[in-house]
């Protein structure tokens, strides 16, 4: 399953400046593994101890995956995955 992944400014150092890259997988976890294979270092910015890092928001199409299975969220051909830095604090 081929998907398009939008990369936020802060992570573009891992994609040679590209705003958007292609990846494959049937779940978000697989997509992230595939990203890591081509853009080393990305996974560590997205995943911590087997779950999505709280500092990032990841969306499949327009849905925040925190509400649709996290790393197990299904992706299908042509989906758009968007990564944004979470904006939060105290």
């Amino acid at each position: 399953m081929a998907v398009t992944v939008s990369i936020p400014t802060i992570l573009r150092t891992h994609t040679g400046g590209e705003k958007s890259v292609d990846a494959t997988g049937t779940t978000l976890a697989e997509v992230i593994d595939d990203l890591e294979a081509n853009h080393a270092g990305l996974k560590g910015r997205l995943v911590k101890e087997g779950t999505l890092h709280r500092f990032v928001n990841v969306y499949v199409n327009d849905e925040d995956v925190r509400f649709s299975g996290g790393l197990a969220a299904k992706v299908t051909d042509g989906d758009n995955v968007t990564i944004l830095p979470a904006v939060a604090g105290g």
Partner: protein
Amino acid sequence: MLLIRRDLVDAMVAHARRDHPDEACGVIAGPEGSDRPERLIEMANAERSPTFYRFDSSEQLRVWRQMDAADEAPVVIYHSHTATEAYPSRTDISYASEPDTHYVLVSTRDESQHELRSYRIVDGLVTEEPVDVVESYMFAHTGADDVPDCR
């Protein structure tokens, strides 16, 4: 240094006052690379809390896409502290991820006098910066005609 129009400062303070005692948060977009805050967007605090804030993730996606389409960047990200000083908390620092963004803190703990300060936060390092409030960017520092007003 953060150069910012007075109406935007007033709008941040008014938002913070309105949401007090919960924390208020928002973003001011500006043309990519300009470092000039222009379009203020009040964001919902998904935490609705006096001690935490978090941009609602769906709203953030919508707003970030609008900025992207308009070649804008989040020049300012602001939030309020309602019981403490306008200085980034440990949580603020851990989440801060945009090296080019001015992180503005507004404290509403004193009901008659607000405190507004601006910071750069890069790799966990906080640097306070002066805030230069102007009536307009075009005529920010109008002086003698032989003093160019360029930044």
